[in-house]
């Protein structure tokens, strides 16, 4: 079976580097599935989970960033990316509640947008932990 090297890097250091058979993720424009031999591609990612399929499947929560594809290598560059084991669920829950409270209160647009993003990130993390 052909494999792809997948590396996930964040400003705080590499999160993962391993071989997988398929990468399935959610780009801004929709779901993307990448198999070995894909043409070079760059796409921005949405706040979502990246599913890496192979012998040891992995899920990774990313908050935005983008994906760079080469025929034999996939690099995910995100400002934060975590494996399920590294996610602090308590913190994510707290962040979710905080964001929800902010969304309830009427605020100007920028704060609203920010709270919305924070909520998305928190929900994404919780979802990744629960479906690991």
């Amino acid at each position, binding site marked *: 079976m052909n494999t792809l090297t997948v590396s996930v890097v964040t*400003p705080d*250091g590499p999160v993962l580097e391993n071989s997988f058979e398929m990468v399935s993720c959610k780009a801004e424009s929709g779901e993307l599935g990448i198999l070995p031999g894909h043409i070079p591609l760059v796409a921005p990612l949405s706040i979502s989970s990246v599913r890496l399929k192979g012998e040891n499947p992995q899920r990774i929560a990313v908050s935005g960033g983008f994906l760079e594809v080469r025929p034999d290598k996939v690099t995910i560059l995100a400002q934060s990316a975590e494996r399920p084991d590294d996610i602090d669920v308590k913190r994510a829950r707290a962040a979710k509640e905080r964001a929800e409270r902010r969304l309830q209160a009427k605020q100007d647009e920028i704060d609203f947008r920010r709270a919305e993003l924070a909520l998305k990130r928190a929900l994404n993390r919780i979802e990744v932990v629960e479906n690991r």
Partner: protein
Amino acid sequence: MASLRDIKTRITSTQKTKQITKAMHMVSASKLSKAEDFAKAFDPYSNKIKEVVTSIAGSGQDAEHPMLQKREVKKTAYFVITSDRGLAGPFNSGILRDVYRTIQEKHQSKDEYAVIAVGKMASNFFKKRNMPILNEITGLSDQPNFADIKDLTSETVQLFIDGEIDELIICYNHFISAITQEVTSKKLLPLTELANESSSSTSAYEYEPNQQEILNVLLPQYAESLIFGALLDSKASEHASRMTAMKSATDNADDLIDDLSLQYNRARQAAITQEITEIVGGAAALE
């Protein structure tokens, strides 16, 4: 001549200072090696993002983005990175002097520039001189995470996108080695040099959905990564600079203790000699 007791007190107090500076030296040394590790961990990210950005920005004429274009400069922002605490030799003073001089030379009025201050030293310095501060952050940990400064970097980049500032210059101490750090000023935004740099990697990418959308996501992320890189660089310099300062303080304390011990022994010797002379004199008077 100072009395024996005075000299003794000075020696003890210098010894105590030496203990402290020596401890600080060792603390800084260990923090420096950690800071270097952090900078190393950041490398793959920054290299990769730079590679992708240059290959996109240099690939075609249709890659246009406000962040890549030079515009008339009405307001310049200086992003100044210092530490929270002193005792780091010329680390803070060097950079603040440099920025202050540049501002005095380049700008006539306060509307033409603003400062974004990282660290208590910078924020106090510019506040005292009544200079406009757009944003500040203090109390950063010694090993900053990206999450700690994400708000600051994204706000800064947003200021540029919104047209509040037309130019962003970042000033920090660049870490060269444990004994050399260099005050550096770099123009960060607009990213003009990027478009001129021909891409070294020849890979042509497919863009999903299109180049413009990618640049919208990529360029702010790139600019933020540059700021974070400078911050890590500056942290390493801070620890190196503090280490050197504390090393020389310890050495100076050693010298001082040597001098004082010599003085102390001379004084002691003089006192003994005097006593003997007195005894001999007294004995001679009896005969």
